[in-house]
């Protein structure tokens, strides 16, 4: 049986056994909560509270700063302490609202949610937008915008990205097992927006139990199906997911909607369910804490804004001080120099590693082995593109399709010469994209 997949990709050690069997545990923050105003792609949110204000859990503290933006909600009750710069997980100092937690968790009264069948599409979209839902797999693109393509009737597939192809992370896996109903409900909400669409749950074949659970949960849903995908990184990359599920290929100039697809990940769909069915804004998510430096790896339901250090402490802290700490997965996540940074809408995991493999690796000359070409899901030539990037030859870089790179990092992973291929290509891509915009 040929499983659905794409060409290229890698099979790194998945490390998922560390946290896979740990049921989701809810934990509450002790210290202050920090909310970066920019946790999404687009304009930063605008604060709607003053320093000194009392806020309730579930109260909006910053509104969307434009169409492509998302509001932010307090996840605890307490006092607004400051509006000041803090480090976010990617290492930049960004303006953040700080709330002192009073420990009471008094919630605002949410408007009574109407049954889905009685809501218009516009109402559903507004609820998703107002709840502050963004792509929670890491990209942070405002979901309301994603769900408002120009021609909604042309969308024929809603794909739930259940691949979770990054090593170590098991948050989506636990969510699929423990909150199957909410996930399916989230899909139901999205399908209500697109009359001609079918819902697909794209799950990698290493999550057999999730596949069974999902199939059971959707047996009375004629518009939904589960598609089993080959376990391979980057199966969860949007373009690769679309291709595996529908055999439609899109390039960097196209949006999923151009192929009639909308892709949302597990956590996002659950957020949509919470927003539309329960009427509550986005205030929490599930985060995996794992890695060989972590005492008790596990999966935690946490309130957004909580300090990452507190979360690591909840997982028993570090056995030995790690050399490297990563927000997100080891393939595409960000290494953090400090844990004194908040959980944001896009934080899927915190990983602590005793050894920094990258620091250990010595870069040598390229021997033209072609391994990067073999694994590249965008079918470009990473070693050559990195050469162009390193000598800053932007024209050739663009001509040789450097912009098609999805920055999955598979090339850097396999390179026997340990060249930082993705880093070179990624930097050049940013420059080229910026210059392209100028034109």
């Amino acid at each position, binding site marked *: 049986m040929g499983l659905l997949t794409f060409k290229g990709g*890698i099979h790194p050690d998945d490390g998922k056994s560390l946290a896979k069997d740990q049921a989701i545990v809810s934990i509450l923050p002790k210290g202050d909560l920090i909310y970066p105003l920019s946790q999404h792609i687009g304009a930063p949110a605008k604060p709607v509270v003053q320093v000194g204000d009392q806020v309730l859990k579930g109260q909006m503290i910053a509104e969307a700063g434009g169409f492509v933006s998302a509001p932010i909600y307090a996840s605890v009750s307490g006092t607004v302490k400051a509006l000041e710069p803090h480090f976010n997980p990617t290492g930049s100092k960004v303006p953040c609202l700080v709330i002192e937690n009073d420990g009471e968790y008094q919630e605002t009264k949410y408007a009574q949610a109407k049954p889905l069948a009685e809501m218009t599409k516009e109402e559903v979209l507004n609820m998703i937008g107002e709840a502050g839902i963004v792509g929670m797999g890491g990209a942070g693109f405002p979901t309301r915008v994603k769900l408002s393509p120009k021609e909604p009737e042309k969308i024929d597939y809603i794909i739930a990205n259940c691949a979770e192809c990054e090593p170590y992370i098991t948050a989506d896996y636990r969510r699929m097992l423990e909150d199957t109903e909410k996930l399916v409900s989230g899909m139901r909400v999205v399908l209500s927006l697109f009359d001609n669409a079918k819902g697909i749950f794209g799950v990698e074949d290493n999550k057999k139990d999730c596949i069974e659970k999902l199939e059971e949960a959707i047996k009375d849903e004629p518009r939904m199906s589960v598609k089993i995908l080959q376990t391979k990184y980057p199966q969860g990359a949007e373009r690769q997911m679309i291709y595996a599920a529908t055999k439609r*290929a899109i390039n960097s100039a196209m949006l999923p909607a*151009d192929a009639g697809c909308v892709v949302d990940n597990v956590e996002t769909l659950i957020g949509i369910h919470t927003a539309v069915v329960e009427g509550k804004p986005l205030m929490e998510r599930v985060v995996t804490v794992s890695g060989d430096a972590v005492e008790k790896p596990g999966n935690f339901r946490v309130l957004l804004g909580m300090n990452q250090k507190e979360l690591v402490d909840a997982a028993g802290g570090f056995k030995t001080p790690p050399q490297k700490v990563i927000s997100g997965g080891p393939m595409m996540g*960000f290494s953090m120099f400090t844990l004194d940074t908040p959980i944001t809408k896009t934080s899927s995991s915190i990983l602590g590693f005793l050894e920094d493999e990258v620091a250990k690796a010595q870069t040598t000359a390229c021997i033209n082995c072609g391994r990067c070409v073999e694994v590249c*899901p965008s079918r470009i030539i990473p070693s050559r593109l990195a050469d162009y990037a390193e000598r800053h030859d932007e024209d050739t870089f663009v001509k040789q399709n450097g912009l*098609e790179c999805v920055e999955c990092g598979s090339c850097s992973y396999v390179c*026997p*010469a*340990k060249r930082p291929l993705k880093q070179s290509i990624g930097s050049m891509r940013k420059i080229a994209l910026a210059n392209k915009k100028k034109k």
Partner: protein
Amino acid sequence: MNENYNISSSPHIRDKVTSSNIMLFVVIALLQATIFGVFNFGMSALINVVLTTATAVLAEYVYEKLMKKPVTIRDFSAVVTGLLLALNLPPTLPYWMGPLGAVFAIIVVKQLFGGLGQNFMNPALAARCFLLISFTGKMTYFVYDGVTGATPLAELKAGGVVNTMDMLIGNVRGTIGETSVIAIMIGAIFLLLMGVIDLRIPGTYLVTFVIFITIFGGHGIDAQYITAHLCGGGIMLGAWFMATDYVTSPITKTGQIVYGICLGVLTGLFRLFGGSAEGVSYAIIFSNLLVPLIERITLPKPFGKGGEK
């Protein structure tokens, strides 16, 4: 809080395979043919192998020291070059010639063009051709069991009859490492299993070559003749160990197939219509020169291109 963990660009994990691992695998794969050659041809073969390989490594070391570049002899690439050159030499070669070739391979072909990864020709083969042109007599003087004579391939070309079983095992005249097809294939299978090489280049090379000699060899579909051609001369060593050299072969997958076809055609052309019975070395270094052109016309189509926009 002042933890200051390491930071770097993603990905934060790397595969275990390094360039020196790969080179070491190639050395291990070549040992079968080397050991067979030493047992087959005796002491002079051993001395030639040791001197040539050692000189290659030494040449790299001395050059890099003199040029104040980082010394890279631990990546085993000079060992591979030296060993491959040695395996391409007649066992009776005067002991100074192999080392001279090794110096040529490392300094002229590899280092002067920028070192590892930058040479446009296979250093070992370029050095072999250099020696072949400079010392044609010595380089084509073959003895087996004390009897001087032609290689099986030359006999075949002259219309003689050859024993293919001996050629398979390697009990025939030839260079140190090329005679035993069995020993070479053990190494080649090891490299295939370790993922160091794949079938694209050697497969298309050998298939094209067989088709070529079937059409133009004048024997039609003659299994005996085809087997003799495949087991004779340097084609096995060349196809599995030298045509597959990463640096001098195309990086694109389609390019590797085009390259294999070029090799097959050129080898057939040189063997059937050339002045010498052998043609593998020239076919490979000539095809090396075509690599940039082959790559240009075989650039892969990026994912999703061909869709609108």
